[in-house]
């Protein structure tokens, strides 16, 4: 037996013993997920237990170094852990911008002090993070951001406004892009700073969306003091880190094009909704639309797999994340439209117990944002055209 096989057996046994039954089902909405943080209200004892047990092993961030509380697993071991979790449909113990985004950036670009200060609480789910990137005047043209950080020796004084800050009203800390040099070319005067949301001068206001929920906020920064030791990487060199983070974000959002383990596939939903006749979906037109989507979804899943395999083999195209983000989000929007069509008028029920509080129309509307957030589809196409195809 190889070491990896032994690891698989141990992992399987440990998950079997430690993953509560109620955590062996896919997360159905943002509200259903475990986000952690100072003020997080656990929805159940099981949810809390599952986070604590996984965090104790560092498996909320399985491939991060052990010295900061991570799991210290190799790439192959991480894959085994993911496969074994998928096998029993175990949900992620923690949904976290800390784990997905700022953690990897601190690991790659941050000082030793920043790593020791921030990584362990992220892994344990104690601090919830939000991202301060977009501004009212700087959306797709992110480098045009205006939020200004004035140099006061050992600290900065930050003034400005951020928008589309996901869950800023629930977050404990923000990773924020600020302008530290107004003279330089716009990409060269940007820094990435970290601050506590309870710092005087920070205020947030939720923005209500067409889905009825408000995952996004506006955040106002009024003379906010940020110590210089909370700058990630070099001062004025934040744009490189910003791009690195955007790549992570795109991969994360692009993943929406894939059907999660345990989630019903669109053909399964179609069979339940309209039934089979002679082994074929009873509605021929819907059947052909669903197979067109299914073909694209299957080819997209293979492409995500191939991009990963190529990266492991040290090959592959740069800017693949732009392609995955573009295609994955468009695919998810198509999925949501077909899902609505399959459920007919019932798909539009907004309130009421039987509708799971309007989960279907709200999820459909929320998907419209996928091709806007993290860089619009049009921006991704620009990136592909310019960076990969050399068209300008």
């Amino acid at each position, binding site marked *: 037996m190889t070491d990896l096989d032994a690891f698989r057996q141990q992992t399987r046994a440990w998950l079997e013993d430690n993953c509560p039954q109620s955590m062996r089902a896919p997360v159905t909405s943002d509200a259903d997920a475990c986000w952690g943080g100072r003020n997080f209200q656990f929805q159940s004892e099981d949810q809390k237990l599952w986070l604590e047990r996984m965090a104790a092993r560092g498996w909320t961030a399985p491939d991060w170094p052990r010295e900061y509380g991570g799991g210290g697993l190799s790439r192959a071991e991480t894959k085994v852990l993911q496969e074994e979790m998928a096998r029993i449909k175990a949900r992620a113990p923690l949904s976290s911008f800390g784990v997905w985004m700022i953690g990897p950036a601190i690991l790659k670009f941050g000082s030793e002090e920043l790593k020791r200060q921030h990584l362990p609480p992220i892994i344990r789910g104690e601090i919830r993070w939000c991202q301060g990137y977009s501004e009212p005047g700087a959306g797709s043209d992110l480098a045009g951001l205006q939020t200004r950080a004035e140099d006061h020796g050992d600290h900065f004084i930050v003034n400005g406004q951020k928008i589309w800050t996901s869950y800023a009203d629930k977050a404990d800390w923000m990773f924020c892009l600020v302008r530290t040099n107004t003279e330089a070319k716009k990409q060269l005067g940007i820094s990435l700073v970290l601050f506590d949301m309870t710092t005087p001068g920070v205020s947030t206001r939720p923005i209500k969306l067409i889905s009825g929920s408000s995952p996004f906020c506006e955040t106002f920064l009024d003379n906010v003091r940020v110590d210089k030791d909370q700058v990630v990487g070099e001062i004025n060199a934040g744009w490189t880190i910003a791009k690195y983070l955007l790549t992570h974000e795109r991969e994360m959002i692009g993943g929406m094009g894939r059907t999660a383990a345990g989630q019903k596939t669109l*053909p399964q939903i*179609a*069979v339940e909704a309209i039934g*089979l006749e002679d*082994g*074929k*979906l009873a509605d021929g037109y819907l*059947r*052909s639309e*669903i*197979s*067109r989507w*299914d*073909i*694209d979804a*299957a*080819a*997209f899943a*293979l*492409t995500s*797999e*191939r991009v990963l*395999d*190529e990266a*492991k*083999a040290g*090959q592959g*195209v740069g800017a*693949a994340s732009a*392609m995955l983000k*573009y*295609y994955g989000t468009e695919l998810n929007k198509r999925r949501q439209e077909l899902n609505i069509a399959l459920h007919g008028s019932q798909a539009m029920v907004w309130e009421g117990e039987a509708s799971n509080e309007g989960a279907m129309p709200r999820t459909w509307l929320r998907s419209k944002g996928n091709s806007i957030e993290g860089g619009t589809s*049009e921006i*991704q*196409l*620009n990136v*592909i*055209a*310019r960076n*990969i*195809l*050399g*068209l*300008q």
Partner: protein
Amino acid sequence: MSALVLNEEQAMLKDAAKGFLAEQAPVSQLRALRDTRDETGFSRELWQQMVEMGFSGTLVPEAFGGTQFGHVGMGQISLQCGHNLSASPLLSTAVLGVSSLLLGGSQAQQTELLPAIAEGRLLTALAIDESPRHAPWRVATRLSRDGEGYRLNGRKLCVVDGHVADWLIVSARSSGEESAREGISLLLVERAAPGVSVERTIMADSRNAALVSFDNVTLPAEALLGVEGEAAAVLEWVLDVGNAQLAAELLGIAEEVFSRSVAYLQERKQFGVTLGSFQALQHRCAHLFSEIELVKSAVLKALQALDASDPEAPQWVSLAKAKACEVAELATNEGVQLHGGMGMTDEFDIGLFIKRARLVQQLFGDYRYHANRFASLRGY
């Protein structure tokens, strides 16, 4: 489960095929074959060189003189044939002929014919379709017992390389309704046999696909490939093998037309700037790039599944052929449009690619055929 990347051996074969075909069988060769109305429709000299490169024996086991590089290996050759529009009997003989013999052939048939194919001494052609749209079970060609042997009557359409093949591999029915899978047999028929008549048809892609008729052709018992009346499973797998290679060829066509189009947009100026600076065109190219990336993954998965004899291979092949058909159609249509008036001229190569793509799309099932099959195989 294999990683979705080429291994070292496959990557070497890809490079070898790329260099060799670009040099020995570029698009200009197809153009010359067309313009001289070459009676073979491909260069016999090129085919001999391909044989020497080992291409004819890529799917042939080493015991029969092949190189046994497998489906992924063969796919790299088909891909480069797509890039160069290289005309050869690779599909008819080295893919369809070899897999028919491997899956349905007796020890004696394999021992006699496989080494001959690997050594380039023998050409075969698969004669199955009888209706304009691909429908492998719609077989009216009749097989009847005649003493110790058989008698064959019927007519086949679109038999690729049928006019030059030494042996035809023919589907015929001895029982069952016209579109039933049951009752179909595969037979090895000499093209020169009495009662076989072959009419060469030159297709839009300048390649050949014959119309073949069988009029009371008498065959010995040994002509049977596999079990009488039970050839459907063999034929289905042979078609999967063929369709995976056609998907690889379509990928090559799409990639080539796409890169030529992008290069054209970078050069060609209108309104004082390059066409490539227009966002409307950039976005169409970036979308097409993404679609081609999906085809690459689907084709590699299908080829790997065939090499692994994965029971789900049929599903992956239909996925690959469907997606390759859709994207090659988009790529060649965009190729003409992005080249503007130049794209409509015979002098420019784009037209040769669009014509080849459409024929390959239709051969053994287009997007609609395989999307339908994919849905059925997925249980809906």
